[in-house]
């Protein structure tokens, strides 16, 4: 076991898969010589060569599109989108091509592609370097969407994503990269896609999150314990496929649920979870399914007071939990 940060966990996972399978390669902006702007791919070009760690032009549509074509032909590409905010030119390739290929080819062609994208705010990135994009993509059948919150999960999930026969959008909260550290075993392991995990057991309220928000939720749950309220924190880890049984099982036990995400509220992923609980656990509920999310404003602003006001925080989660506990 070694303690590493989330960024190192992703790098290790990719490194081990590249060592194991010569078909794994990376294509993205400044991923090679520079090792990526966040340095996730640092050292991999030296180790595996410029044929397998490829610096691309600034052109997101073809970064993803070329990886789709390669994935169709016995390789396992990892496309890096430098910031999730830059993914939109590639939307068509991801949604119209990658996600539909297996279905339209009668199952003949899968697209074993991983698209990595650093997302989220809290780093003064302002309008174009702070976005959460999960709701756009979790809507798309055929595409898997993963958002780990710990180094252990990140390493296990990146390996599962690389091995997966279908396209996976791998979302990395950029604020967790160096902030979140944890133990990662030395042996080879996987974390399965589509499986949530209870990160803190509890009986009174189910608190559901992923990515950076999971850590804020753990802090808030600790505060509520002081109030005598036992909060169960469920880390979704995958948004699609969604571990519906884990969500419903927890809510049937606690009778109350709060979903937290940084992405804005309306049309956000919390609405899907709320609908799921209402439809399938209605008779177990002791209060409304609540959502705490980013506000419905067009972007995360630059100024610190405004960014703070946009981001959900442990304090805001505590307030929402207390409101829910009062039901």
């Amino acid at each position, binding site marked *: 076991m070694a303690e590493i940060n989330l960024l190192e966990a992703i790098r290790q996972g990719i490194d081990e898969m590249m060592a194991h399978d010569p078909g794994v390669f990376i294509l993205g*902006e*400044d991923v090679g*010589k*520079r090792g990526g*702007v966040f*340095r996730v791919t640092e050292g991999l070009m030296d180790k595996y060569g410029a044929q397998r760690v490829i*610096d*691309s*032009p*600034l*052109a*997101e*549509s*073809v970064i993803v599109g070329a990886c789709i074509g390669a994935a169709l032909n016995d390789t396992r590409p990892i496309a890096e989108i430098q910031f999730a*905010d*830059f993914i939109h*030119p590639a939307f068509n390739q991801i949604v119209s091509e990658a996600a539909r290929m297996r279905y339209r080819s009668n199952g003949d062609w899968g697209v074993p592609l991983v698209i990595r994208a650093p997302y989220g705010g809290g*780093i*003064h*990135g*302002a*309008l*174009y*370097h702070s976005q959460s994009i999960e709701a756009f993509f979790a809507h798309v059948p055929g595409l898997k969407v993963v958002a780990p919150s710990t180094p252990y999960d990140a390493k296990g999930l990146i390996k599962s994503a690389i091995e997966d026969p279908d396209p996976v959008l791998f979302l990395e909260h950029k604020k967790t990269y160096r902030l979140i550290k944890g133990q990662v075993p030395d042996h080879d392991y996987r974390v399965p896609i589509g499986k949530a995990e209870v990160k803190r057991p509890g009986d009174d309220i189910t608190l559901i999150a992923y990515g950076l928000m999971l850590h804020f939720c753990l802090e808030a749950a600790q505060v509520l314990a002081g109030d005598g309220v036992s909060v169960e924190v469920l880390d979704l880890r995958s948004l699609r496929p969604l571990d519906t049984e884990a969500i419903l099982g927890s809510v049937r036990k606690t009778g109350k649920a709060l979903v937290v995400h940084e992405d804005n509220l309306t049309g956000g992923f919390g609405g899907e979870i709320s609908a799921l609980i209402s439809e399938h656990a209605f008779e177990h509920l002791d209060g409304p399914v609540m959502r705490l999310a980013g*506000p*419905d*404003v*067009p*972007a995360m*602003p*630059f*100024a*610190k*007071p*405004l960014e703070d*006001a*946009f981001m959900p925080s442990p304090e805001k989660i505590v307030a929402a939990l207390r409101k829910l506990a009062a039901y």
Partner: protein
Amino acid sequence: MNDTILDIYTRMLRIRRFEEQVGKLFSQGQLPGFVHLYIGEEGVGAGVCAALRTDDYIVSTHRGHGHFIAKGGDLNAIMAELFGKATGCCKGKGGSMHVADVSIGMLGACGIVGGGLPMASGAALSARLRGTDQVAVTFFGDGASNEGSFHETLNLASALKLPVLFVCENNQYGEFTPADKAMNIKDVADRAGSYGIPGVIVDGTDALAVYDVTTAAVARARRGEGPTLIEAKTHRRSGHAEGEEAFLAGQQYRSEDEKAAAQAKDPILVLRSTIIKQEIATAEQLDELDRDVTQAVAEAVAFARASADPAVETLYEDCWI
């Protein structure tokens, strides 16, 4: 013409002293977020904008401070924006990568590479629909010329003969990757031929040459003859972003020779010596101008520091919910 030359020089100097101050503030940890400096590229922004009217439009990039200032933007307003203050040109919402001032035709910097080109063609289209002779200019880098939006926009603008200028600031790097690793041609201007428009190469460190080619392209656009692609060869004296050394961890992506060559072709020193040689102004007069500009930048910093943070309620302003 002498007034024009001094005007261009003043614009360049305002950019340079502003950017130097911003670099210093960033290194002292006084500016949050990401900052991309325009030092070394002033000849392009100043030469282009001096050839425009206030009611002409520009669309900028993530490296946009210079364009804002060259178009006549207020130093206090942009400095306050970089500090995220309520008095900033975007009330603190935008920050460095998103400076804008519609009143001077500066439609905005854009944090997405290639994001500005299509909008510039739209601004040009609006001028035609409204029956004015305004032109629109979009600045972008060599890296953006590999984005789909570049190709889509050049084609549309050419097909519709729109009054738009495409100004490629070829500073030879797309972020950290040399341009010659990202494209298999030497000159971005060559791409103009594919779209049936003129492609002009100019030395971006020669502001007067930039002014001349822009003046010709603007006249052509105003005559209704369509767009021009101008490729200004220039140098990015700073890094891609300030503070990158910490992330580069000692890694060098530019040689010392290359950096020295860029220093030697400083656009401000080039124009300064022209001005003195042609006796348009004396060295003493230029030094006095420099002192005035430096003072204005210092005042902008003081203004930004003294300004209030935006009120939290403004998160919900300038949008509908």
